[in-house]
């Protein structure tokens, strides 16, 4: 595999990650969201593996395998088990309607392209062009957390945001040091467990996972 061909394949992976990020933004069904999240993890894992192969930075393979186990298998499974246990099946309400969300998403992509353009010109890495996509994925994850009311969707948005950060690390500097990556992976796993506990508590207190309900906790003026 030549470097330029690898760069092309990596661009395709970046495009697919961006596509799944938008998919997460517009998907209404919660199971569909989980599938999309798993796909995003898979594309991220492939992209990391390709970059690791081309550049010879071998710890990227370890991060790739970590991504595969954590973000493609373990986390979606945990969330799936939670959804099954809490009987959340219905379509999710969004705060902003979906076409408007898409337009905001496009604006965010243009913004991140504009923001990373100077960095891209300075960089000499194979992966420099994907930095804009990585930043856009972070922003889209953030947008998803803002526009959704449901606790589970907000968590998926958070995890997608983390995917974007990981991708940014790979494209900007060929990955963070191994220790940091292991730490982040562990953090994500622990976070998933804590989310689970919180979901149960929110659900038993309010009989719903709609975070709007938490407004009730405010003291009366």
């Amino acid at each position, binding site marked *: 595999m030549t470097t330029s*061909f690898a760069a*092309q*394949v990596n*661009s*395709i992976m*970046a*495009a*697919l990650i*961006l*596509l799944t990020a*938008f998919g997460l933004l*517009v998907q209404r069904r919660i199971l569909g969201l989980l599938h999309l999240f798993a796909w995003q993890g898979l594309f991220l894992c492939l992209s990391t593996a390709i970059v690791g192969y081309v550049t010879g930075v071998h710890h990227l393979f370890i991060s790739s395998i970590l991504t595969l186990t954590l973000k493609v298998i373990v986390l979606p499974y945990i969330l799936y088990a939670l959804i099954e246990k809490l009987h959340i099946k219905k379509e999710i309400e969004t705060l902003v309607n*979906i*076409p408007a969300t*898409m337009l905001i*998403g*496009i604006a965010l*992509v*243009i913004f991140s*392209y504009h923001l990373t353009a100077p960095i891209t010109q300075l960089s000499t890495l194979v992966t420099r*062009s*994907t930095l*804009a*996509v990585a930043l856009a994925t972070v922003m889209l994850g953030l947008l998803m957390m803002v526009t959704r009311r449901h606790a589970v969707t907000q968590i998926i948005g958070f995890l997608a945001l983390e995917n974007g950060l990981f991708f940014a690390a790979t494209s900007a500097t060929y990955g963070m040091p191994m220790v940091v990556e292991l730490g982040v992976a562990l953090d994500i796993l622990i976070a998933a467990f804590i989310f689970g506990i919180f979901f149960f508590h929110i659900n038993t207190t309010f009989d719903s996972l709609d975070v709007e309900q938490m407004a009730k906790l405010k003291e009366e003026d």
Partner: protein
Amino acid sequence: MTAYSYTIEAVQILLLLFAAPAFAGWVRTVKCRMQGRTYAGIFQPYRDLAKLFSKDVILAENASWIFRVTPYIVFGVTVMIGGIIPLISIDLPFAATADVIALVMLFAIIRFFTALAGMDIGTAFGGMGSSREMTISSLAEPAMLMAVFTASLAANSTSLTQMVHVMAHGEFTLRPSLAFALLAFIMVHLTETGRVPVDNPSTHLELTMIHEAMILEYSGRHLALIEWASMMKLFIFSSLGIAVFCPWGIAASGDLVGMLIGAGVLAAKLAVLGIILVLIETGLAKMRLFRLTEFLGSAFLLATLGMLSFFILE
């Protein structure tokens, strides 16, 4: 411009006129097979057209000249579009008359007159169909334009023959932008040709119909021309997709062997495309009218992402 290239042009238009019903028949046959129904063979559309041509035209009392002239405009413009898209060879004298942007506008002319004719008689169905068609096309057209812009960015030209030339005979590169544009184009294709998630081509007299509602008052040769034009539209959209996204096999010059190979390759691609179309149609349920904004919004989103990823990633 020699007489020879005009011959090629004439051959292409004849091919369009006479292969389009067969393609429509092929799609129907595969669809029937897929859904376990008996099928009438791929030549049934020819028999339908022949039957309609032999029948008398019945005009409503208050039909104006718009109603009478629309079938001819629709048919004529469709044939003209067919003369512009490279089907088997890129050596087309007509191709210089219009690029892809003009092509989208030609489709808009067809739609404009069909919608006018739908409202002309004054029946409730016609007006409803026209209003739906206009709503949908106002959403589909930007997506279509963005998709072809993305493809023409890659080729550095909006001329179709130039795009085919660069894609088919240039250096092969993996382009994420074209993949996005292709997805968007498929969604627009389904919309524009009235396929299942948007409109159902096989229903007549159903409350959810769009294209059928507009042409409900037509009969005889008028109906035959419109039906023929809509079969050609299906053929044209499919071969436009082939020309822009998968042009390998279209002859670079006008030599006979190349064109024969081109015709064979086109037939094979169309056959595969028909099967894909049927798979999409059988796999999806018809969408609620108010969900169509999201469907076409996603098409626009994909096309825009394609254009952005051209700048970001390529």
